[in-house]
């Protein structure tokens, strides 16, 4: 060994050192990277486990407090992260049932959304991906089909373009309809249908679903600001699609009822008691809410005594008011007063709803606003529960029809 070392010149030493350093450096980087990745994965797993546990616990708290919309989001999340998490399927089902009481709405509690694709680029050959897409088409797994086609086109945009265009068209169409009719993702559905229109005209049934989603979105854009507008849009939906809901899980029929109450409150604030009573009565006809009844009675009295256009004066003696979705600043949900009325009123100028054409600096006091648990009520109209297979009122031509004239 020493003999060999004795023959080495300074140049050899230098080159040897350089080579050893490069080798060591490369190995260190590789080992370090792998080890770092492992640490990261471990940390991720631990963090995720803690996160899931915490969300489940918070979900239980929300459920017990009646905050079903929040509880549902948390249980959904837990289910997506760990479909085998003990009790979560039951809790999610229970939450959905509570949200849907007393109606039955076709909402799946199965962890369907766990089909989210892996972020790892799909490196399978186009043929294999196409075969998967065909299988998803046969199983009518539309959402996954769209993701599979996107993955296929990332590899080869022109691969079997005729068939792939067709698959994508069907995937987007039915996935869009599913988002609107079953998932509450109204704008996501509208967007998918906008993509469908790049291929072909939107079919008549899809147009109807798209229109419903649009009406809901317009109605909700006025929510809490211009209740009369919300009433206008949700009144149409309440009869056409009462079970249409948004990401908060509030059905169109409930939106209509709550919008009527909001509008009634607004009219009462303006001293328009008789008009307010009309709104309250309409809302009560949809669902008899005992908490609202004293307000209706009081407004009715005011209307009967000709108290229109008189603004109430606050006194110690407060009368119950319409429960609303007003925020309380805490997680505890309480029916909050939107209006305080008294037996005696003093005339004041009518309060107008301000809609100004100029921008104004908004006040910045954010307050947490948990949604009031909504219990959807069936309304007199027959619920519409369309499925992607629903057809429009076009008669299916009878291919066996005997020709009477020359075709």
């Amino acid at each position, binding site marked *: 060994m020493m003999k060999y070392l004795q023959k080495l010149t*300074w140049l050899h030493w230098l080159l040897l050192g350089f080579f050893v350093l490069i080798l060591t450096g490369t190995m260190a980087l590789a080992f370090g990277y792998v080890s770092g990745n492992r640490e990261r994965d471990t940390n991720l797993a631990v963090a995720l486990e803690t996160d899931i546990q915490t969300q489940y616990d918070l979900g239980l708290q929300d459920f017990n407090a009646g905050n079903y919309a929040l509880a549902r989001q948390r249980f959904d999340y837990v289910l997506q992260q760990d479909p085998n998490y003990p009790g979560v399927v039951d809790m999610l089902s229970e939450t959905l049932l509570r949200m849907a009481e007393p109606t039955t709405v076709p909402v799946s509690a199965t962890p369907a959304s766990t089909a989210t694709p892996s972020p*790892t680029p799909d490196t399978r050959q186009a043929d294999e991906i196409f075969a998967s897409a065909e299988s998803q088409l046969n199983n009518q797994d539309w959402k996954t089909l769209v993701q599979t086609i996107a993955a296929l086109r990332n590899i080869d945009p022109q691969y079997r373009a005729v068939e792939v265009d067709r698959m994508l068209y069907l995937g987007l169409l039915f996935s869009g309809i599913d988002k609107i009719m079953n998932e509450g993702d109204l704008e996501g559905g509208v967007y998918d249908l906008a993509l469908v229109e790049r291929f072909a005209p939107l079919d008549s049934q899809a147009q109807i679903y798209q229109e419903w989603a649009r009406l809901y979105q317009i109605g909700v854009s006025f929510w809490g600001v211009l209740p009369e507008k919300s009433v206008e849009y949700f009144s149409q939906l309440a009869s056409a699609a009462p079970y249409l809901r948004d990401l908060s899980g509030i059905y169109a029929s409930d939106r209509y009822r709550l919008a009527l109450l909001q509008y009634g409150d607004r009219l009462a604030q303006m001293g328009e008691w008789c008009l307010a009573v009309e709104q309250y009565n309409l809302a009560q006809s949809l669902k008899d809410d005992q908490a609202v009844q004293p307000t209706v009675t009081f407004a009715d009295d005011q209307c009967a005594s000709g108290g229109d256009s008189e603004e109430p004066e606050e006194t110690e003696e407060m009368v119950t008011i319409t429960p609303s979705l007003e925020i309380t600043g805490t997680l505890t949900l309480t029916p909050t007063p939107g209006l305080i009325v008294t037996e005696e009123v003093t005339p004041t100028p009518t309060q107008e709803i*301000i809609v100004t054409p100029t921008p104004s600096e908004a006040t910045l006091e954010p307050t947490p606003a948990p949604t009031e648990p909504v219990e959807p009520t069936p309304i007199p109209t027959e619920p519409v529960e369309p499925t992607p297979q629903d057809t429009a009122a*076009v008669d299916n031509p009878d291919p066996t029809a005997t020709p009477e004239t020359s075709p």
Partner: protein
Amino acid sequence: MKPLQFLRATPKSNAQRLVMLAALLILVVLVFVGLFVFANRLANSPSGFLPFSGVREEGETASEAELPGVIAENIEPAVVPEGIVTPWDGTGRVTVLVMGLDYRDWSAGDGPSRTDTMMLLTLDPLQNTAGMLSIPRDLWVSIPGFENGRINTAYFLGEAYQMPGGGPGMAIKTVEGLLGVEINYYAQVDFGAFTRFIDELGGVKIDVPDRIKIDPIVGDPIRLKAERQVLNGELALAYARARNTKGGDLDRALRQQQVIFGIRERLLDPENLSTLISKAPVLYNEIASGVQTNMSLDELIKLALLAQKVPEENITREAISAQEVSFADTPDGQAVLVPSPERIRQLRDEVFLASTGTLGPLLPGTSQERMVAESAQIRVLNGSQFDGLASRTQAALQADGANIIEISNGESTAVTRILDYTGNPHTAQYLAEFFGVDPIYYTLEYDPNSPVDLVVILGDDWGLKESQTP
């Protein structure tokens, strides 16, 4: 002795050789340890990538966890809940929600913040296009699970209620609910890092269109002249935050886009390349410490490389502005912007549907050529009062290359209808154009086992039209 001669000589004693060996060994150990730690930290992303979840550690206050610029030493690596965001497939369209927190909340430091800025950036690598859409903070929107509120409170609510995904998760859900597009990543940019980053770049060149008064966080308000000028980090931030112009928050969105373009220009400037390379570690540190995101370092680099390939003319810049909203006050006196969903949808489509990438039709050719390629089997039924209409129509369609498998009589109808049983978009499109059928008379009755792909029922409208055609 000349250097080269020295190199050719051998060490004179064993002691010298041992010293060489020892030195080499020490060097090897040092290099190994150093690079191992470096690679380990890099892979583990220990500095900038904060947990995505809104769940805080026990005893940790909101201000400690959420305030930008405050990086806890014991932070966990990013948790990306797949139920909250749709992961990017690595090659298709990718969309990022960029957020800046409200400075007043941030400086108060006693709880969750609202967002001050929201901007959606999207990139379609296949078609080399990109887009940015600014969202005003006072937009009145539905926040999932909560009442309607200003969009800037979504982040606050997600944090305050420890929702899955926390503030970023709730902000993403809210924006997705508003626009309907999937968001893959978020990036929450800290004020300090933003200014330092721009300073390291040597400032950004901005065309200031009108004289404007800006109010830097540090120092007195100043007025910028209407001219092209280089702004340092502090002034660029103040310029991007300024709201005291005629258009208020809506004008501000355009200024923010100007600043982003200014940064892009600096980064892509060839003259700046050597400076950028020398400052790469500093710039990386600024990004890592000042940007909270669910993006991994690999993804960040990949995105940056893709983004720099997109030419400026392929970048669509839009902002939700006065045309897409109406101004209103809530009953408690808050000034808010009520969105017009239809108009916002048009704006979204300009940004996101300018190129549909993998999610659009890719079969080339004209409508007729695509119909021929699809080769769908069509049955034509005469539902009109015109004798022989189906035969004549068959001849016309076959001349265009349509695959007519049968003609017959059908139930009488005044208007022509198209029924698609197996999903044939290109043929449906062609037939709708050919017959001038209103989409309301086009129906998809999906039945994969149907013996025929499409049925056309000719109505009196077509019979009349056809009879008048010479």
